[in-house]
């Protein structure tokens, strides 16, 4: 497992043992659910439990994990970032366009630019006091519009495959993309836990006025959160290019809702404050399992969305920790 920023254990300790048990249960619920789902699906299709197919799931999950991780930090601040999908597409186009000139080095500028894009959105949100939902909704159109324009609305193939080999190969038998995602989660997790950033983010998410009047750089924290989210989208974009050998202006768009779903299924409160990256990691795996697993168990594809919808609702209803969310909207 990875380090989870753990500002949430405190209240559990405070109250009686029973509550603590429930608290602990709530913390591991996502993990339990993941296992349960895996078992259930594998009853229909034993192949799912083979090493390969598990590794394949992990591999498929990588871009989603990266996106969701970034989104988590914004959501912990009490905001939301709807632009990540489009931003990832944008990044994929940039990557594909620039690989010929800068080869492997492409990663750095792409992630930087994505981070700036996120920062810009954060700045508008903070400076103009516009709800993040709106700003990033606008961002969504903006980035995909830009992606369409610079790519001439076409797929940009990648020829210099070596440049991104690291992002789509196997190391120690594990999909490297998954490792990249894990490293990201660990690094950000450490940032959240071992520096004040983590508790700042939660303070802002829980009680922004209090955070502000305690002299926390609320605006800065929010903008940084959006910047990180942007950077993650950029990285996700690179991973996508690595596995499709090309960049395309709509490559990552479809990952937006699954990413947010992953965050919430992981048990992070959409109202902000409570949650963590480890939870999101598990949440992402659950979502991917639902996405690919359902098509593997030989049910009529027409029923697939229905079952997906039902399962996703069940998933959230068991994973969210209601004791941490004041008003549920």
């Amino acid at each position, binding site marked *: 497992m990875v380090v989870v920023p753990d*500002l*949430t*254990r*405190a*209240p559990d*300790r*405070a*109250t*009686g*043992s*029973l*509550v603590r048990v429930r608290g602990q249960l709530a913390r591991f619920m996502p993990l339990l659910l993941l296992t349960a789902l895996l078992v259930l699906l594998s009853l229909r299709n034993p192949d799912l439990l083979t090493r390969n197919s598990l590794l394949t799931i992990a591999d498929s999950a990588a871009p989603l994990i990266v996106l969701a991780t970034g989104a988590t930090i914004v959501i912990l601040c009490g905001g939301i970032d709807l632009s990540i999908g489009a931003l990832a597409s944008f990044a994929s186009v940039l990557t594909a366009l620039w690989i010929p000139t800068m080869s492997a080095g492409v990663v750095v500028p792409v992630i930087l630019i994505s981070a700036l894009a996120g920062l810009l959105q954060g700045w508008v949100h903070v400076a103009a006091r516009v709800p993040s939902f709106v700003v990033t909704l606008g961002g969504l159109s903006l980035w995909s519009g830009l992606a369409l324009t610079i790519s001439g609305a076409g797929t940009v193939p990648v020829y210099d495959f070596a440049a991104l080999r690291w992002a789509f190969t196997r190391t120690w038998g594990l999909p490297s993309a998954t490792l990249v995602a894990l490293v990201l989660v660990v690094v950000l997790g450490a940032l959240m*836990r*071992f*520096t*004040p950033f983590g*508790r700042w983010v*939660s*303070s802002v998410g*829980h*009680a922004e*006025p*209090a*955070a*502000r*009047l*305690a*002299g*926390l*750089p609320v*605006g800065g924290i929010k903008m940084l959160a959006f910047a990180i989210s942007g950077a993650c989208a950029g990285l996700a974009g690179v991973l996508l290019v690595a596995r499709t050998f090309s960049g395309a202006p709509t490559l990552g768009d479809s990952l937006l809702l699954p990413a947010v779903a992953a965050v919430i299924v992981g048990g992070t409160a959409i109202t902000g*404050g*409570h949650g963590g990256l480890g939870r999101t990691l598990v949440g992402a795996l659950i979502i991917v399992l639902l996405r690919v697993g359902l098509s593997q168990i030989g049910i009529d594809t027409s029923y697939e969305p229905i079952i997906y919808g039902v399962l996703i609702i069940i998933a959230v209803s068991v994973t969210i920790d209601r004791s*941490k969310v004041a008003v549920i909207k």
Partner: protein
Amino acid sequence: MSTPQAPVLAVEGLTKRYPGVTALDGMSFEVRPHEVVGLVGENGAGKSTLLKTLIGQVRPDEGKIRLQGEPVTLRGVAHAGSQGIGMVFQEQSLVPNITVAENILLGAEREGVRTGVYRWGAMKALAQQQLDKIGSSIDPGARTDTLTFAQRQMVEVAKVLTIEERTTVEPVILLDEPTSVLERREIATLFKQIERLRQRASVVFVSHRLEEVLEVSDRIYVLRNGQVVAEVDPHDTSPADLHRLLIGRESDGGHYHEDAQEPCDEAPLRLRVEDLMTAGCRSVTFDIRAGEVLGVAGVQGSGREEVCRALFGATRFSRGRVTLDDRRLRLRSPRAAVRAGVGYVPSQRRTDGIVPPMSVAANMSMAYVGEICRGPLLQGKRERGLVDRWIERLGIKTPSTTTAIGTLSGGNQQKVVLGRWMVGEDLRLLILDHPTRGLDVGAKSDVYALIRDLASAGCAVLLLSDTLEEMIALSHRVVVMKDGEVVKTVDTPRGAKPDPVVILEEMV
């Protein structure tokens, strides 16, 4: 049916246990028809839990609640209302974005709504009936968040009175800390309301302000540790007596730790505010010396809150010059103020002061995170050490440093907030916006002591306070603000404290 002396409401051996604490411990008392019963007790004495059980928000573990002699089980506010118990909540329970009429009738519109359809005429008429009961002139059609705080409280009372129409019996009205945030004049009106109320109902009056309880109540129950420890007759009881009963120990003049007030006339100037102009105040000029406690008196609209917020960078000021230790301050944000060594204890503790779900440690180390970091990294051990030290110094009662601060009592929460600023190595100016609001006598006294410590440690303190008495006792000087300007400065040295009246005259 029942004899006039038979109690309307009787509570018998009420007990409520929470993990770790027993909030109510076999509490018993009764309320007779048309009387005003006062309930006093320190925080943690069980007042709030009692009220919650009386309006059905909390189910008691043991004990009975009798209405008109009949035992009842209350299943929530609405049900309690239908049984004849209504409550005016301390933190106001009005929906800001709907009309007064809707608020008054919310959830019980009666003929104001036919088959789900609003008939605004009827609504307003019905609401008007309620407002008339308390002789209020508020327009039932007005949007609630356009009213003043006092007006809204009147609406609260009117709202509670609707339970009359819902029950056959005479209602019992619970007033929880109704005066804690009212102006003097407003309190006077409220007391008139209570007099009116008693014509038609019985009233339970809960307050920290002993004088007021003594003023309005027919009988007073003193609560401590979840039990009724005394029932007193206000006519032959003095605030001091009541106070003693309340905290279970002698309360002397030392309540304000006045003897700890050190003169600071020689101390260097710490803060100078010149010609400050911001929304709500025209031109404010004053200064504070190091180690001085400066009180700022003024009625609502005098602009003193605005000055405080401006000095902390929480609101922009359009003109003026603020110098701290001869260094000009640019107060772009609270952040900047904190960097410059200014601290702020807001009046709205729960929303602006603390982050309820987070740990005591996190809340305390919030402002000066540098104290617990090496480089960018948090030093868990260092933090625990620091926090434990302050928890001890401030006498904060908490199970552990990782306890969620929201679960502590108001007093302890406030101490953590104060501690947050004392942690800072060079806190130069601390702005206290009603630091003792909603605290019980014991906690207040502790907070006073802390303020003294700060002052004698050389920190300048800017104090806004709930009562003049408190402010005068604590301050070296008091500046009086009116209509956004400083109209008078009164020296309040140790041993020669002026009479509040002197200041009152200037305020109004």
